[in-house]
């Protein structure tokens, strides 16, 4: 079993009277990606802030690299990388100087900067002031900064939100490579496709509660009780059939009459699982 890097036990968080997180439990191992999925306001950013020592939980325990979150101090950041929506860049400094600055703080050699810049396709922009970067470029810059020191755990808050599909793909590729290198990645997203594709485990978060937890496949299968088949007939018409006796009889008659052109089972997506569990669509 791979090493456990993050553990959440009964984590709850209140802001004044409002309960924002309720009894969260999860684990993340070395070389895994754990996705927290949920609509806006579900508590994703709050969870990351608690795990990175930026907020205190109201109750419960969480451990990052074996250290209780209430005991962590600034030295933890030498072993974890954090990207939130509040991770800025020094706009007057160039891309390279931004990274050089943080690399010197973290004691990282200069070659690492060049290597990463090339990997994310920012190398040709290295002399640009960071304030002049496009959104996708800036997003890649903060991501590079967060992994400069080869952290063991990387926290990413909606790393691809608002990015075009091809930039998002670049980022996905980098995350997969980092996972290969053994990094554990905790990411939040409201993009179901991203979660299905990248994550080893997902937690569906709704109103501060984990309503489902498992691998993307497990979750899809679990909600595949109500199996449905999409049938394309030779006359071009379509049917959606279920597993009731009536539908099954009809399907077998159609098959015997050789009237079926194609037959597909409809697997639920994480999106539809979320809809089933919470009765609401992802924002």
């Amino acid at each position: 079993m791979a090493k456990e890097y993050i553990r959440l036990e009964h984590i709850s968080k209140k802001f004044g009277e409002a309960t924002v997180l309720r009894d969260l439990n999860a684990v993340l191992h070395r070389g895994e990606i754990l996705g927290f999925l949920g609509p806006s306001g579900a508590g994703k950013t709050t969870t990351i802030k608690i795990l990175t020592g930026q907020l205190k939980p109201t109750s419960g325990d969480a451990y990052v690299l074996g250290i209780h979150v209430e005991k962590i101090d600034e030295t933890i950041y030498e072993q974890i990388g954090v990207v939130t929506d509040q991770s800025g860049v020094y706009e007057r400094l160039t891309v390279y100087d931004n990274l050089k600055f943080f690399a010197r703080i973290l004691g990282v050699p200069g070659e690492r900067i060049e290597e990463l810049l090339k990997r994310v396709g920012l190398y040709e922009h290295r002399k640009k002031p960071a304030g002049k970067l496009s959104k996708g470029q800036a997003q890649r810059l903060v991501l590079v900064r967060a992994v400069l020191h080869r952290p063991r755990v990387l926290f990413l808050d909606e790393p691809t939100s608002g990015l075009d599909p091809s930039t998002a793909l670049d980022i996905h590729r980098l995350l997969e490579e980092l996972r290969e290198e053994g990094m554990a990645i905790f990411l939040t997203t409201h993009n179901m496709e991203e979660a299905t594709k990248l994550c080893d485990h997902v937690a569906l978060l709704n109103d501060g509660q984990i309503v489902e937890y498992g691998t993307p496949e497990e979750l899809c299968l679990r909600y595949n009780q109500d199996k449905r088949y999409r049938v394309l007939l030779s006359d071009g018409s379509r049917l959606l059939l279920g597993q009731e006796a009536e539908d099954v009889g009809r399907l077998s008659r159609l098959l015997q009459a050789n009237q079926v052109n194609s037959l597909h089972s409809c697997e639920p997506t994480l999106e539809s699982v979320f809809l089933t569990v919470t009765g609401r669509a992802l924002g």
Partner: protein
Amino acid sequence: MRTVQAAEKMHGGNGGIWRRTGMKTVHWNKLSVILSMKWRTQFSKNFIAMPLFSVGLTFVMTLFYGSMAKSNGKALDDSVRGVALSLGALMNTTMTGILCTGMALAEEKEKHTLRALMTSSVNGLEFFLGSTLPVAAMILIVNVLSVPAAGLRPSAAAWAMWLGVSVLCAIASTVLGMIFGICCKSQVSASTLISVPTLVLVMVPVFGEFSGFMEKASGFLFTGVLSKAAAALAADTPRVDGFGLGVIGAEILLAAAVFVALYRENGYEKE
């Protein structure tokens, strides 16, 4: 490398990082990186204007008074040079010290670089020193350059007094700058909030020349003590009275106490 041991551990509030990373130790390698970055920032166009303006003010005022004296057929009195020096030094100490420090902190928050620093293993004390020391150094350099700009040639004792008072005033004003920086979320709010107290700190000693009440009030401000020190330097009577030193000391302590209280509440942020 942990050298400076902390007195305090931080509590309270929701602003976790700063509370937790506390003000405990200084890692010299991290501090030196921040110092060199912040020192370079001093020369960016937003920040260099104030120091340049201050030296320029002393120089231009000296020229102006000089030409007035000349038209009256007299040589320029050293006490008038002291007035020009005082004006530039006041502008420099307050504008550079409070405005530049406060604006820089507000900018770090506005652009979210403060959080990036704190989540890259920089602690509150390293950030504090990294933010204030370069500004204090700039204040000192400008106060030193302003002396020849006023055409003064002080004795060694007068230089020592001037440097000493300048150092103390630089400390007071940079801590004040950090306090205002904590209270502001953006550079715009920082520049409006800071301008009024800065104006008071400059104007009270300046009007002290003309009004007895202002002169009394000025005695209770560190900028008033600085202004007197400029006069003493010009007269080559390098003395600061105990009351003046007490005023600066008390104001530094008061500013430090307010800063620590604010910092303990929520780090460099205010919700």
